[in-house]
């Protein structure tokens, strides 16, 4: 899979409350409406700056905190095609894979706000077009790549009549 997009940079420990606040997740069910509030407590009106196909770039422990699936739903709803971070928290990691939101784990230190990035998941690297530096991706286990390629866990489950580990 090859993807191109612009980086929106955030720091470490972006929790799911910051991705989508409890103020909204309990009363809004429409993903497009939820997306209007994505990352709002960290950057008000963030969604207005996102173009479809952009990347959300962060430091370590992205998605820590609550189990709310509205977090990856809001990210996807905003048009973000992948989250690129140094590491992901466990429940968010599963939720994103389950919904078919691509997660890229790599050293994001050199990626800054607005940098154009090119991701090649097959070759396993991200190229930062700002300086043409290549960064190695920590590969996803094959099982999870299958879930993403199948379009999320529900489609995977239906296609194989269960999990195909």
């Amino acid at each position, binding site marked *: 899979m090859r993807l191109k997009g612009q980086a929106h940079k955030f720091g470490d420990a972006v*929790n799911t409350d910051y991705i989508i606040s*409890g103020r909204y997740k*309990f009363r809004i*069910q429409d993903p497009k409406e939820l997306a209007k509030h994505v990352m709002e407590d960290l950057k008000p009106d963030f969604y207005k700056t996102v173009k479809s196909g952009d990347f959300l770039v962060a430091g370590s*422990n992205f998605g820590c905190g609550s*189990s709310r*699936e*509205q977090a990856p739903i809001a990210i996807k709803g905003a048009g973000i095609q992948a989250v690129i971070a140094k590491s992901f928290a466990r429940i968010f990691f599963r939720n994103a894979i389950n919904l078919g939101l691509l997660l890229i784990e790599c050293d994001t230190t050199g990626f800054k706000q607005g940098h154009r990035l090119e991701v090649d998941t097959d070759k396993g690297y991200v190229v930062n077009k700002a300086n043409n530096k290549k960064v190695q991706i920590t590969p996803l286990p094959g099982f999870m790549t299958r879930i993403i390629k199948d379009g999320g866990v529900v489609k995977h489950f239906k296609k194989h009549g269960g999990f195909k580990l």
Partner: protein
Amino acid sequence: MAKTIAEKILSAHAGKDLKSGDYAICKVDFCLGQDGTSGLIIDALDKIKAKKLSARSNFCMVIDHSAPSPNIGVSAIHKKMRAFAKKESLKLYDIGCGVCHQVVLESGNVLPGNLVAGADSHTCTYGALGALSTGFGSTDLAITLASGNNWFKVPKTLKIVVDGKLAKGVYSKDLILHIIGDLTADGATYEAVEFYGPAIKALSMDERFTISNMAVEMGAKCGIIPPDDKTIKWLKQWTKKTIKPVYADNDAVYDNIKHYDASKIAPQVAMPHQVDNVCSITKLKGKPIQEAFIGTCTNGRLEDLKIAASILKGKQVHPDVRLIVAPASRPIFLKAMKAGIVKILVESGANVVTPGCGPCVGTHNGVPSDGEAVLSTANRNFKGRMGNPKAFIYLASPASVAVSAITGKITDPRSYIK
């Protein structure tokens, strides 16, 4: 091969020998959803189109996160949950039953050695019963409910040994905050944690639930306390089922072993806006607060309310502070009434609200104003968590919160505890 508790429980539920790093399909013993996650569970089930819900009798939904409903959007979700429960003959605990984790504990549905999945990150609470219990998202939960199974990665295990004895005025909340401060919010990501040592054994069950509840705040998949006589006695209040504890082998392989000395720990506070931003309460002495909150799946249990009442008895909450108390469940609420605890709290000026999560998750029942400081017994202090990104949330033990509610500023409870 010698095994940790997580390796044993997952092996037993996969029907094959597993070690850390393996992936397997495991049978789940019990699963649950709450009103923040169940709407999406129902939507996911619609897409799965399962002929039957295999885990139907081992599942429940709890309306606790915004209960009673504060607005039309939430009312629609509650209505959807009630209709779904009726249609599928599922167990639903409606408003007022309490916080899902206390409700499930009191239902007697979770036993030592069980594998439990909940669409709520604090499902790790049941680790205090010796279960492998972990948080899931809604789609994962829907698949579990439909098939009775899900996939698991067998985690590495971090062993935490707590020696010594907690000083007077220092509680299990202070201990777990101290550990999280030391290990950090991603110090145990994707790991199982096993808690050992005399300081853990000395804790009551209510205190142990606080420890396991916060395992997720260091990124852990679960936080297991090996069952002992106290665990068995506690369980027998709620279930007649056979109890078969699972213990780690003596030569089990741990990813890391950390030692702490309980006697050296002072009351702790997690400062805004991260749970691992922890310091001794003495450093914040005198910091004014405008709101105090006692409740949640971390510290809304009977012992917590008892401690608060013992401090607030005959005293008044400071005029500049709103004190909100939410018992963790209806049985706790009733017991607190019978014991005169509720009367003491209300007479002191506390506002006792419906058992549930409300204030902690910022849905209703005490949203702070801009610039205000809240001292809370909850497990999270993220910016905006209580409904206002311009407020500041500090986390502490029920004793620290009760004492500070009287003085109007963050106060070390040690000199107040007889």
